[in-house]
């Protein structure tokens, strides 16, 4: 179904990922699910969790971080809907990530820099 997306990013920033590629498409371009399989992944600037949730079926642990509390609320709701138990979302900024040194295998900066 074709859905008009005009105004989505403006009116509902947390939903702006509707304007982005499907996570499976992006992941395929980066090398496929093997890139994140059984890995610890962090999605910095995760928005509503598009890529983080796309990685969740393959990764051992996924963390999504975004400065927008509304986006994080939306991401958590989507994770609950999907039953993605290995994903956590938290409000934060890319310059100060509250994680130990060398904790992650993969850092995603998808539409973030």
């Amino acid at each position, binding site marked *: 179904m074709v859905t008009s997306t005009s105004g989505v990013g403006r009116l509902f920033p947390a939903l702006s990922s509707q304007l982005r590629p499907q996570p499976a498409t992006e992941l395929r371009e980066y090398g496929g699910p093997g890139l994140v399989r059984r890995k610890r992944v962090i999605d910095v600037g995760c928005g509503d969790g598009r890529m983080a949730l796309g990685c969740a079926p393959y990764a051992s642990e996924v963390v999504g971080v975004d400065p927008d509390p509304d986006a994080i609320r939306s991401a958590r709701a989507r994770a609950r809907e999907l039953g993605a138990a290995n994903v956590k979302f938290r409000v934060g900024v890319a310059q100060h990530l509250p994680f130990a040194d060398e904790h992650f295998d993969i850092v995603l900066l*998808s539409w973030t820099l």
Partner: protein
Amino acid sequence: MVDALKEAHRILRPRGILVDARPESRVLAYAERQAPTGSYRRAGAIATARVELANDRTSDRALATAVRSGWFRSLRAGRFWHRVLFEDRSGMQDYLDDHPRFVHRVKWIVEPATRRKWERDPWAIRRAVRFELLERV
């Protein structure tokens, strides 16, 4: 941006992978009309707004700094395309009017009469995404 890359370096294990993906502003995006058969036909070109070009260059410089500083080394880079879909041409134009990334005017390659005929058909903006995989040193 460099601070964010330094932080990414800190939390990544050695030989971990950083994926940077962003809209590709070095190529034009395209306005496309979807035919009843489902195929798309290019109808115009859409340039990136000047301020976004400057932002993208700043991101490029930050990444170059991270590589030059010895935090990361490039493994692979590429580009792919995706479509943002709209119910009709006015929906696409509303999006362009509001969206800061693109200039608001499409540079049309089809005649006004053709555009009017296609007004209520589905449209899409086909845009490029660039990406790079970098290994944490």
